[in-house]
């Protein structure tokens, strides 16, 4: 994961980008917890809202794989289905783990 390249694409300093990534990781972990709660409470609306939040933030920073998965999760949850969400949550957490802040 090339942080310099991602920062450059956004037109911001490397240090600012790292600060944003740290914030992204924190907020995404919080959103993942909300998705899990949505699954536990059988509330697709809550899961969709949290997926939407991750989608927006990851897309803005250029984390395309997290963006794609959270987009699909949002669409599925908006259609009322939480099938395979436990697996998706695990996948999201793995993707988040690959973000190694220099």
């Amino acid at each position, binding site marked *: 994961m090339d942080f310099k390249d991602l920062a450059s694409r*956004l*037109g*911001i300093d490397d240090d*600012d980008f790292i*600060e*944003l990534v740290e*914030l*992204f990781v924190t*907020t995404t972990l919080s959103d993942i917890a909300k998705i899990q709660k949505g699954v536990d409470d059988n509330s697709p609306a809550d899961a969709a*809202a949290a997926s*939407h*939040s991750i*989608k*927006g*933030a*990851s*897309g*803005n*920073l250029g984390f395309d794989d997290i*963006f794609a998965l959270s987009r699909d999760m949002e669409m599925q949850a908006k259609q009322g289905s939480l099938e395979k969400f436990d697996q998706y949550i695990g996948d999201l957490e793995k993707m988040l783990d690959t973000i190694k802040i220099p």
Partner: protein
Amino acid sequence: MGNKHPYTVLVVDDNLMNLKLIEKSLSKEGYKIFCADNGPDARAIALEEKPNLILLDIEMPGENGFDVITKLKDNSETNSIPVIFLTGVIEVDSKLKGFDLGAVDYITKPFHPLEVLARVRIHLKLSIATNSLIAGQANKLRQVTNAQVAMMPTPEDHPEALFSVYYKALEEAGGDFYDILKISENITGYFVADSSGHDIETSYMTASVKALLAQNCTPVYSPVESMKMINDVLVEILPEGKYLTACYMHINRTTKRLTIINAGHPPVVYFPVGKDPYLIRTEGDILGMFKDAQFGSQTLKVSEGDKFLIYSDGLVESAKNKITWATGAGSLLPVYQKIAQESYEKIPGQLIEELFGGDDFPEDDIVVMCVKV
């Protein structure tokens, strides 16, 4: 420098990372940013601070963006603030609903910070244009009745601007003048001009231009846009035969971008750290004569420690020796090389000493300004 409040933008998004990204992108371009992560706080800030523009996420828990804009528009104190929606929702119905509720534009997520910046600028410009800024400025300036020589700011007045200056007027109502514009915490404008004439009308013009600079050199306008707006007003109000040559230098010390706008003025001298000085040659029309004036423009990436010299033609021209600045500017390069290692505080004085230290008195007003990045 005139008193100036920065343009303010309220950003509303329940995702803290999105808030931070926009805040960082816009604040380094001179905007003051307020943030809110929910609807009620956003409305409270809008009421308190009266931001110039609001960027508003739609999908938020509790009060969503549509609820927020409806309440803002219902309040006479906030209903005129332009609102741009930030949204990941792309359905046309949603967009139409937003426009019906009073939004002026949409930015779709994921967004690029430069797109956000461009849309903020355009909508602030539209907001200003609605208030008929140019007509208002021209009317006010026609009422100027005090023929006073404009105060020239000193380096002590503005230590953050990192400049030094040598200024000498040949007669009491000098034709040369300069000004320093604090556009934002990290953006400064430097303006040096030479007006035709040395009479009472020239003093009026100086005061008018200083007022126009304060009004038009803002984060909303690019440097060339600022000069074009000033030119448009000057064309309306200047008497026949009156005009200015000018150089406007705009430095963003956070992004290290420097822009030079040339309106028929001698070229700026660039002293890059560790390298030989050279002239930045751009050509442009003079100020105040043509409605469709075209100005020379150049933008550079600069480094800390780089120095720049802006000066009036009195430094290089000589009627006696039939030298104009177009031919004379380059002849001073050896002198610039000699003084290149001096501090920015000393360069103007050193230059005057080198050129006029003997018996050669200046034939015209002189402004020599040295600026350090």
